[in-house]
């Protein structure tokens, strides 16, 4: 199984965590994701996920001037998004603990 396939279910949570740190625009978010080691993920992958998270009410967007000049669409986390991030963290820690335990036993 490729890391891209493994990532599919957890990318939402990672994006939420990055947006929770501070308001970001698309390119900034993709660059941050790459610096955390997700360089294999195509940068555009984030947009369908951002659109879905916006529909679910986890994030919201506003158009405003970026420090570098042009207007950008900035994403911010909502309170529903924070709840989802908490639930995601709990699921992730429980899952990674189980996987780690199995791998150690092997």
């Amino acid at each position, binding site marked *: 199984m490729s890391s891209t396939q493994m990532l599919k279910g957890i990318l939402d949570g990672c994006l939420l965590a990055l947006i929770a740190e501070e308001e970001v625009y698309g390119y900034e978010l993709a660059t941050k994701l790459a610096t955390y080691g997700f360089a294999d993920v*195509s940068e555009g992958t984030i947009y369908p996920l951002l659109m879905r998270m916006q529909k679910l009410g986890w994030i919201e967007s506003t158009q405003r001037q970026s420090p570098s000049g042009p207007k950008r669409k900035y994403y911010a986390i909502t309170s529903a998004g924070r709840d989802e991030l908490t639930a995601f963290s709990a699921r992730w820690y429980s899952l990674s603990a189980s996987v780690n335990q199995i791998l150690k036993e092997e």
Partner: protein
Amino acid sequence: MHPLSTESTRFLDDLHVYLLASGKNEQATQDIVSELADHLRDAESDGKSVKSITGDSPAAYIQSISNELPFDWKGLLQVFGLVLVGGSSFSFFQQLFTGAVSYSAMLLTSFTSTVVLLIVCLALILRYLSTHMISHGRQKLLFGLFGGLFSVSILVTVLADRFIDSPTVTFSLPVSYAIGLLYLVVIVWLSVSSGTWVIAIGLAAYFLPQFVLHQTGVNGLIVILSSYLISMISMNLYFFLPMLLAKRQIQK
């Protein structure tokens, strides 16, 4: 601002066409296209390629974006309304020009079915072209087939009306004028809401010369030929003049 490469521009054009041909909301389409344009501009100035954004298959990426946008029923009804009203208005006003208006059930049914068929076929062709790299020859063939389908459907509509009996409604002259007025109101409303005045200008270009020449008492054939010529010139001016002006602006 960093200019976009040809590859990026083509990808954004394909995305735009695919989303609109899939019945997605125009504003939502515009939003995601301009957001991706910003992203591509930044990525290219950092030396990245389009593939690093879309992955190996731009077509699959376009579909993944499309899946997240809801179907815009209101926009679709607007397009159908524009084509139905626009297409039927020429025949309606031509009849009104010579007296009361009448329509058969067969004509109304076959015309509506033709409009639905043509819009669906055009949308499918545009969706296919925006996600498949095919030669110019094949593109021309596809549009040629669409043109053929368009001509055959219009011919079938006219023949069905002529040779198949069906209930016909004939409106009195005052009612015909009232419907004509309603047509004009709907055309203005559709033109304002869709942002294109092509139908209003087409109608004016086709019927105003006829009306003026009719008042002068000129021979019938001359009236038809002159109004046809004037309407063709006006429509060409409407379509090509803005393009020429824009081109000159860019050259300056």
